[in-house]
């Protein structure tokens, strides 16, 4: 029996709300009559449309080509006709052009037996090419193009490849279900990643609240005699943040301002590795993903396999609609997700969840003066003092806030969540970083 690890500093134990969906099988959501596919679904530059109004597209066809050094391809989730190219706001508040496709014609993949492709004989280059070609990006939130992440910087070596199965955000259970229902695909995806990165160690980090997922992955690793170590982790948010996961699994800290590769680590989450498997073995682009639809206002919470470009309104409708007054509709987890007000906002590659939260779940409250309780300081996994940073930013002391570690803030939300005075600490950090950037204090 191994002792469960975790990261040492801060962290919180919010109500999990996972019990609602953790046992629900992933089911296929209805194919929407229209898909709204943003060309910016990744970190970096938006893809450039390769189709125009009136064009016919096939399922999985390239509709947006990566441009610039950091970018990713975008594919059509459904067969049909391009009805328009429309500008819209993504949940993050960023503007993007979206290709709107009306469903029409025949599916190339849906309903047909997938054809398996062997990958053992492929070179690293070829594997990276397949990943790039099929538009695989990090599906945990940062959306960094995977082919770029796996193309290590010169002189850097990957010692640890870590599969992130934490899913530490409350409510979410899509990745939990993927590990339980599709361990073969995920483990094979991990093997492909290992073939590219050639790490010394392959690790899987899964929180203890998913014993069935731990068991499923462990069993498979044993059956196949793989050199993969599964680490059960103590439940604590934000363990799914790569900085904390690296600390928990490797016992090492990523230097301030650095990335995991600085300590030899590459971290990918379950959905990403699943997409990687599909790209390489099924030659399938990222045109769908698993989304948890939950929250007390939703009639029938569920885990759905959803075509990219399906609207959030359609997803909620598919889960029985809203049965209670929803105070917030959230795209993503409750700790780092964004609210949306337009239900025609589409699901993108990084949409892990759609939550309709009631006032009773949100616990919003009037802002009061800071009572110096220190909850924010004790909850910060980065060892920052959010109350101090907030005051510095409030007083426009941006240089001092940077000196006190503003750039290290990962915006995980622990401080704001814990604050009894409901001070918008994370919002403060975000705007502080923005100003610091424009003043040249931060890169």
């Amino acid at each position, binding site marked *: 029996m191994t002792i469960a690890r975790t990261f040492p500093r801060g962290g919180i134990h919010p109500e999990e709300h996972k019990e609602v969906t953790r046992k629900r099988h992933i089911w296929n959501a209805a194919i929407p009559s229209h898909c709204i596919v943003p060309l910016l679904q990744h970190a970096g530059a938006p893809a450039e449309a390769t189709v125009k109004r009136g064009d016919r597209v096939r399922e999985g066809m390239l509709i947006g080509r990566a441009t610039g050094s950091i970018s990713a391809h975008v594919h059509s989730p459904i067969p049909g006709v391009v009805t328009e190219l429309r500008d819209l706001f993504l949940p993050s508040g960023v503007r993007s052009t979206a290709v709107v496709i009306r469903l029409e014609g025949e599916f190339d993949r849906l309903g047909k037996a997938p054809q398996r492709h062997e990958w053992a004989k492929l070179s690293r280059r070829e594997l990276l090419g397949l990943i790039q070609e099929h538009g695989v990006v990090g599906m945990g939130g940062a959306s960094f193009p995977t082919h770029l992440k796996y193309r290590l910087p010169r002189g850097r070596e990957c010692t640890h490849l870590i599969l992130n199965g934490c899913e530490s955000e409350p409510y979410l259970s899509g990745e939990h279900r993927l590990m339980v229902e599709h361990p073969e695909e995920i483990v094979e995806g991990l093997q492909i990643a290992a073939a590219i990165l050639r790490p010394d160690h392959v690790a899987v980090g899964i929180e203890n609240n998913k014993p069935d997922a731990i068991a499923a992955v462990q069993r498979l690793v044993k059956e196949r005699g793989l050199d993969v170590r599964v680490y059960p982790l103590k439940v604590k948010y934000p363990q799914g943040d790569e900085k904390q996961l690296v600390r928990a699994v490797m016992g090492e*800290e990523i*230097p301030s301002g650095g990335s995991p590769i600085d300590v030899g680590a590459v971290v990918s989450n379950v959905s990403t590795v699943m997409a990687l498997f599909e790209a390489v073995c099924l030659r399938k682009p990222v045109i769908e993903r698993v989304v948890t639809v939950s929250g007390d206002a939703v009639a029938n919470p569920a885990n759905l396999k959803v075509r990219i470009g399906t609207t959030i*309104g359609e997803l909620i409708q598919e889960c029985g609609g*809203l049965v209670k*007054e929803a105070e917030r509709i959230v795209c993503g987890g409750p*700790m780092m997700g964004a609210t949306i007000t337009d*239900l025609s906002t589409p699901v993108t590659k990084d949409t892990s969840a759609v939550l309709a939260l009631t006032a009773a779940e*949100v616990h919003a409250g009037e802002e009061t003066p800071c009572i110096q*309780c220190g909850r924010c300081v004790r909850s910060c996994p980065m*060892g920052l003092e959010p109350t101090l940073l907030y005051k510095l930013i409030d007083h426009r002391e941006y240089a001092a806030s940077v000196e006190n570690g503003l750039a290290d803030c990962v915006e995980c939300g622990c401080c704001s969540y814990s604050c009894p005075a409901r001070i918008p600490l994370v919002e403060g950090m975000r705007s502080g970083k923005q100003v610091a950037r424009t003043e040249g204090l931060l890169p």
Partner: protein
Amino acid sequence: MSTGSRSAPVTVASSPQFFDSAHTRRIMWTVSAVLTPAAAWGVYVFGIHAFFVLFASIIAAVIGEGVMARILNRRTLRDGSAVLTGLMVGMTMPPAVPVYIPVVASLFAIIVVKWTFGGLGSNWMNPALAGRVFVYFSWTPAMTGWTMPSTLPQADAVSGASMLGLIKQGLSGTGGHVGSPLRFLRDAGFPVSTTDTAVTDWLNQHVLHALGFSIPGGYVDPFLGNIPGSIGEVSAALLLLGTVVLLARRIITWEIPASYFLSFALLTWVFGGARYGTGLFGGDILFQLFTGGFILGAFYMATDTVTTPLTSAGMLIYGGGAGILTFLIRFYGAVPEGVALAIILMNVFTPLINRYTRPGRYGLSEGRR
């Protein structure tokens, strides 16, 4: 409701999208609520005047808060902090104190200690305790005249004194040879309730006998609150009950009470007996914990978030320091209790403690900066 109409909620908010149920207002009102049984006990054993004292303290605090908030154009009464401060002032008053004294204490606490520094969250000293200390030094006779609880047999020889006050007098009277505090009090004619005798006998016969020891009479009265003292400090039992709620709801954390208790208990055990003439390692911890407002201080006053350090390490240092100061004042100082003074003295050190107990940052190998 349906989503068909595309009507979505209008809340646009930055992450996170949900919060811990703890809220400033809820914290303040919960602390007030769990203090109420101990305050009610004070009214029960000391009489209706104790109620007027509590009432006047709260009203004065609320009026003070209302006036200051009005002047500064803020809305603060609903946060509950003024009621809590008033209640705490009242609970630290002697039961028979003239009502104008708690009124002055509350007004001083709210207007001078709290609002001249900017209101809730900005004061650097615990308002209730600062208010109490202010009137203690202003009207010392009135603030040191105690009432026997109705649950004790009346004893003229010791009327008007508190247990710790009697012991402090005894220290000069006996040339520093008080001996065991309980025995000293018995010899001075301090009464014991029939409840104390009955409970002590029962404990000795049914519980402690099996463990091979027994306790003398006299501990049960201070535990239950059958002793003279401030209105809200006497019932250690009811105060401890309230702390269970505060700890369970994570309104207070364990660090300050634990380190306060440990340092005070350790010093009392090692040196307390020496001071009373019975040698090292013989201090009466239990007696010292249940008297002189220790429980009220350690669990309710020393845990005031505004005036205490931010980190666990800082809180442990703070509590430890408060324990040392309480011991020094109570055993060697001029004041018999020492809790209030120790806490507000430690308040002064809070910024310093914060400075030296900043959390270690992730990813900075060679310490800070």
